[in-house]
């Protein structure tokens, strides 16, 4: 499975023009904060709408300005892990995990609750309320919630940025395991070289909304 992205959009002060391809494994979008990396993820997820361009997965079009195709976020099957976990505060951890799972038709599911819970080590948290969890635990639940919706592409927007060093070290192995287990592309935004070194299969460098370089690691 691979994603083709070729989009432009106006975001406040500058224009975003992003063209790249994401294959299974981790593609890091590497750029300083404010370079438009989060906007690129929002455009792919369907939270923002590009001015022009095309987003396709294995030939299926999610967005195409020329053909006037613009699937709403819920039909794109693009998982999104935000910098803040954004768990639903009124639902238990278990209900959070199953939120997207229950909305996914059984024939398109590839992730099951028991396995995801075991991989992420969140079995003891299922009955808890999201706001009673530590930042690292919340982020693990958010990762599980996104994966249980069986996405075709996973977007991760600086998922470690709001965590301290110890928590980061706690989450990183899980992300590596996801990369190795899931057969889907992961787009990972960061501005930290250390995360690039540890996680990236491909690095796409972004500055002022534009792709300035691309390399394998």
């Amino acid at each position, binding site marked *: 499975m691979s994603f083709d992205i070729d989009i432009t959009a106006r975001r406040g002060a500058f224009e975003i023009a992003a063209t790249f391809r994401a294959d299974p494994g981790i593609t890091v979008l590497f750029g300083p904060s404010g370079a438009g990396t989060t906007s690129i993820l929002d455009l792919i*997820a*369907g*939270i923002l709408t590009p001015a022009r361009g095309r987003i396709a997965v294995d030939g299926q079009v999610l967005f195409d300005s020329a053909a006037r195709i613009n699937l*709403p*976020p*819920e039909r*794109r*099957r*693009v*998982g*999104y892990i*935000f910098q*803040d976990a*954004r768990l*639903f*505060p*009124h639902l238990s951890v278990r209900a959070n995990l199953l*939120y*997207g799972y229950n*909305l*996914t038709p059984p024939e398109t599911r590839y992730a099951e609750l028991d396995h995801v819970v075991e991989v992420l080590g969140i079995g003891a948290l299922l009955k808890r309320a999201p*706001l009673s969890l530590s930042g690292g635990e919340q982020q693990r639940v958010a990762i599980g*919630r*996104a994966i249980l*919706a069986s996405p075709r592409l996973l977007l991760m927007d600086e998922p470690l940025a709001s965590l301290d060093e110890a928590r980061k070290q706690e989450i990183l192995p899980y992300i590596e395991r996801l990369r190795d287990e899931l057969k889907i592309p992961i787009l990972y935004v960061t501005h930290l070289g250390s995360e690039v070194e540890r996680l990236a299969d491909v690095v796409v460098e972004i500055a002022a909304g534009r792709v300035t370089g691309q390399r394998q690691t």
Partner: protein
Amino acid sequence: MFDLTPAELEALRLSVKVGLVSMLASLPVGFALAYLLARREFPGKSLVNGLILLPLVLPPVVTGLILLMLFGSQGPLGKFFAETFGVTFAFRWTGAALAAAVMGLPLMVRAMRLSIEAVDRRLEFASRTLGAKRWWTFVTITLPLSLPGIMAGAILSFAKSFGEFGATITFVSNIPGETQTLPIAIYSILQTPGGDGPAWRLALVSVAVSMVAIVGAEWVERRIRSKSA
């Protein structure tokens, strides 16, 4: 414990009925307006907002007069409701409920609007990326998260309706058993010689009911908040 006469009990019963009916009838209207004001930009938005808030600042007697003009038996809306739904308002308890609803609407809409505005829209985006259609996101995320404000708005509206006097007596007059709610009954008793004794008794009843409503509202709100925060 208050040892009420049948007539006083009737006034209390009517006040509770008017309060509940006006609250329940304004819930969907109030929520729709609150949602519109919180989330949408449209031409004439400040006019709509102003119209909703107007009963809060107008003398109630003026609100009652406007209701009489619009919803009286000869009024355009009064005729419309009579012909389309078979509902008449003039000199009936339904009119008292309408007056109470109009007077309570600003409080209800304000409480609901604040609580809808406080819902983190990023949670709604998260829900959409998990496969939820717009309406499902609304039902499972937006609505439950704005529940404290909906409850607060509902109880404020009931409290206001329960105590409404000026617009009600102007619009539907003072008919025992039909439009004579608790405050109007108190007013009537005060008009008769030696009436302040019984008036005090009824006044205590309305204090008790209002206190129960307010304390109940706080309790419900705290419970919902502690569950979601």
